[in-house]
Structures are given as C-alpha cells and as structure tokens.
C-alpha cells in the first residue's frame, strides 16, 4: 500500500515538475515573442526612412514581393543650381546641414501634395506622384508641389541668410509617362525604384531651367492636363540629349485663386 502511495506521489511530483517546466518554457517563449515583435516593429519604423511605407507593408504582410509593374506616374525632378561650386566654398559639415535642412523642407511639401520622395541623388530629389497609389490628380499635385517648393525655398533661404550662409536656388523639371515601379535587384541587394524614359526626360527638363533662366519647367504632356488656373509661359523649342525631336517646355508662373 505504502509503495503505491509513494509511487502515486512520485508520479504526481513528476507531473508537477513537468507542468512547472512547461509553464516556465512557455513564459520564456512568450517573452521572446514579445521581444521579437517589438524588434520587428522598430525595424519597420526605421526601415520606413529608406523605403516607402506602402512597400514595407506589402513586404511584411504578405509573401508577395512588390513586383515591378508599369504605371502612369508624374515625375518631379529637382536639383540645386551651383551646388558643386558651393561645396568648394563651404565646410563639408555645414554643407551637410544645409542640404539636410533643404531635403527636410522639400520632402514635407512633396508629401503634403501626395508626392513620394523616391530617391535623393546628391543634391537632387526624385519624387513620384501616383507610383504607389492610384492618383487621378497626380499632374496637378506635382505642379502645386513645385509651386509650394518655391515658397518653401524662399523661407529656407531666409533661415540660411540669418546664419550667413549663401542662398540656394533650384531647378525643377516635371514630366508624365509610364514607368516600371517596384522592388528591383537580386536576393542579396534590392531596393524600391523606378525605371523608364519619363525619369530621364524630367531630369533633362530640369537641366533646361538653367538655359531658360527659370525655376519650374513642365512638358507638353503636363500642360495638357492642367486647367486654365495655372499661369504658364511657353519656352522656345530645345533639343535635348536622347531625344530625336526638340521638346517644348513651359515655365509655371503661378496659380490663380478663385
């Protein structure tokens, strides 16, 4: 009888130890899971600075890659004038601060107008409208963004002047067309990007701002989608690299209020 009682007690004890260990293990696993979750959330937040949030969401929430697809987008390319010369005259650490401030101001305006800053190339900004979401107003958004960038730069220049830094001047080129947008690259290294002729055209049009001595230039494709509130002035036909025909551009003077 005593043997049975001892055996039963031993079995109960063993069971208790197993349950206790299992609970401890579960608690450990739950802690690990919570820690991993927190880490993943932090990673998503930080990663958002390098890649559009929509892309991250699609990549983390499903096993579908953000496959490149052709879509009509409006491309805005902005570049600082005289930047190389300025770099020679200003301390690199000051130049980085000036540039960071400029990017901050411009990105804010672009985001407000539904633009998505896709790339910062040196002192250049490549922004797309309608690349990630359907946007029937992408042309109007891009031009309004450019006009507000003009105002934002004026404000930023006041700040620079107070700090005795030279003022900045930019050129903006806007064009519309179909581009391939999505995550590109190989397994080791890939990034969200866009490829297509409209990107090159927008960059060429931006370069024409120096020739035409203006700050915002749009192409014919943009002009036809704007209504008569936008005050435009045609520029002479110019031949640009990579295009067989000369292209017509328009400078954007402003927008009329109702």
């Amino acid at each position, binding site marked *: 009888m005593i043997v049975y009682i001892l055996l039963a007690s031993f079995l109960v004890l063993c069971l208790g130890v197993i349950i206790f260990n299992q609970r401890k293990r579960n608690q450990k696993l739950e802690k690990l*899971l919570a820690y991993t*979750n927190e880490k993943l959330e932090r990673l998503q937040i930080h990663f958002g600075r390098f890649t559009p949030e*929509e892309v991250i969401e699609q990549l983390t929430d499903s096993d579908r890659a953000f496959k490149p697809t052709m879509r009509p987008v409006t491309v805005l390319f902005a570049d600082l004038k005289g930047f190389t010369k300025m770099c020679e005259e200003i301390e690199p650490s000051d130049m980085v601060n000036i540039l960071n401030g400029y990017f901050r101001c411009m990105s804010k305006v672009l985001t407000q107008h539904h633009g998505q800053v896709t790339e910062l190339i040196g002192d250049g900004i490549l922004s797309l409208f309608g690349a990630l*979401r*359907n946007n*029937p107003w992408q042309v*109007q958004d891009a031009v309004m963004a450019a006009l507000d960038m003009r105002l934002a730069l004026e404000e930023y220049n006041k700040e620079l002047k107070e700090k005795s830094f030279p003022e900045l001047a930019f050129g903006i080129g806007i064009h519309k067309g179909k581009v391939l947008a999505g995550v590109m690259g190989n397994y080791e290294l890939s990034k969200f990007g866009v490829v297509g002729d409209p990107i090159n055209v927008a960059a060429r049009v931006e370069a024409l701002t120096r020739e035409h001595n203006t700050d915002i230039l749009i192409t014919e494709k943009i002009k036809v*989608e704007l209504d008569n*509130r936008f005050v435009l002035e045609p520029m002479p036909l110019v031949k640009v690299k990579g295009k067989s025909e000369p292209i017509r551009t328009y400078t954007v003077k402003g927008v009329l209020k109702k």
Partner: protein
Amino acid sequence: MAELLNDIEWSEPTLPIVHDLEWEAEVKADIGRVMDIHMRTSNSEWLRKTILKWPRYEAKEFPRKLADICTLVAAQENACRYCYGVARSWMRLWGYSQKMINNIERSVQMAEMDEKERAFIRFCRNLSRSNPKPPKKDRDELIRLGYSELAVAEMAFLIVNQCFVNRVSTFLAVPPMDDLERLPNSFLGKLLRPIIGWKLRKMSWTETRPLEGDPESFPGVVQKLLGLPAARVMNDALEGALNSNGLSRKLKILMFAVVANSLDCEFCKEETHSMALECGFSETEFNAALNTLSSPHLTEQEEKLLSWTRETIHFQNGPMQSRVRELALEVGDSMMLEAIGVASLANSTVRLAVLLG
C-alpha cells in the same frame, strides 16, 4: 502598419460639443448614457442618428465573436484612438482574455484560431486598410471557406460601418473614454464584469423595419445588401446624407465621386456620374470638376472641402486633425461636421461597392 493603442497620435477635439437637450434625452432613453461623440455630432440630424445606431449593429449571418473581433481590428487599422480604446474595453468586459486581444492586435499566434477566423481577420485588416484597393480575393476566400455570400456581404458591411465610425471619431478627435478604459482592470470592473458585459450586449441593435419600394430604385450598394437588415441601414444613411441641408447636393455628389475615382471604383464612378447629371452638372462640367477639384457650381469654401475629401482616403491622424481644425475656422463648424459625415460615408460606401459591386 497597424499601431498599438498607446502609439496612436491623437489631438484635442477639432469641433466643439453642441448641447441639444431633446437629442440627449433621446440618446439616454436608447442607450442609457450620452457620450461625447453624440454631443459633438448633434448638429447634423442624419449623422447623429447614424453614429448612435451603426456601432451597435448586430450581425445576423455570422458568429458574434467575429463581429467583436472586427470592431477591434478595424479600429486598430484605422488608428482611431477613441474607438480602439472602446473596442478593447468592451472585449475585456465581454470576457475575452487580455492575451487573446494582444494576439489579435499583434497578428501573432493566429494558429490558435481556425482557418475561417484567420481568413476573416485578414479580410477585416485588408478592407479597413484598402490600400491599394479593397481586396476582392479575400472575399472569394471567405466564400471558399464556407461562408454564404450574404454572410460575407454582412461582414463587409460591418467592417465599413466600423470604418465610418472610426473616421468620424478621428476627424473629430473625440476624447478617449478613460473611465471605460480603466473599468476592465478595476476591482469593480472585475467583480461586476458579467453584469456589465450583459448590459453592454443589451445595447446591440438591429434594423427590424424592411426596406420597402422597388429594389431597382435603391443605390447600387444597397441593392448588394438586400436580404440583410444592413440594406435599410445603409439606405437610410445615404438618403439622410444626400438629402440634408448642411452642404449643397452638388458638393456631396462630387465628394462621393472623388472617393470613387481615388479608389478606382467603376461601379461608383458610374453611379455618381449619373447623379451629377441629374442634379444639374453638364458632362463637361462634371469631368472638369473632377479633374481640377474646382467648379463654377461650388463656392470657394466648398472647393476646399472637396479637396479635403481626397485627404480622407488614406491619412495620418496628426496632420488630418490639424487640417480639420483649420478648415473648420474657414468654413464654419456645422459645415465641417456635415463634410466629416459625408466624406466618411463616401469612404465606407465606395469600399463596400468595390468589394461587392
């Protein structure tokens, strides 16, 4: 990325409370308590009624547990601090464990649920998010798993119903209900949980009046809900919004059209197009208004509200609440309130139509 309760950006209310004693008595008779949101919406007849009824809609075609989960998931996806806090507290008072709520919020350990529940939660998240578009394939998946078409239609309605309430609450920045949020963890809350939970369940509401008239005459999206109490509920809200005097009918139709175009809903694009022609727009005028978000038929204030409608499709709370506050100063509180209601309803209607249309 869905945020957790304490990470949600939330400001002070954007529009003031307006006391309407008659309305407050009606609310009290119905649910026993007048909440902040009922007073902030009291200036719009149709909106206040919709806000009182919609969150309490009781689903007929699918289990209550899924409806409860839907409320939480939609509020989290839409980052509505007010609704998220309420949904969390209600779930706790209804007896759901904190662990289960945490798991749903973090989309983890879904293995504890069955395949149908997991598919439903995915459906809720994707439809609430609607980025880039409401997911038709998720709807087909639910039907494949054995839910009837009517059940899926009701699920979709319940989600967009929550999205409507989430949007209105977010745009108004309704203050979170701190007392309710504290209740589940308080001694009294723990002690009286079954009774409080039962009382809360008793607040549920469903439409019992049938939708009368020629089915062909109802808006397309209502036709898709025929056979459900939701048909009448949706029809009443749409009629109320379109017939109210707070904003011009032309502006309201354009607001619906803007959302339809943004979410690329062919079904709603056609419907708003016909409605626009019926109410006095010419074909050219309507297209121009949509392309430029301005029209000779609209005042400057109305154009501002039309442009703002675009912002209501995908938004961040902080900038949106600041924008509503600025706009309210320009257009006035009552016009802003009406616009909040119409834009929220347009978002819900179009999302539903993309899915069921």
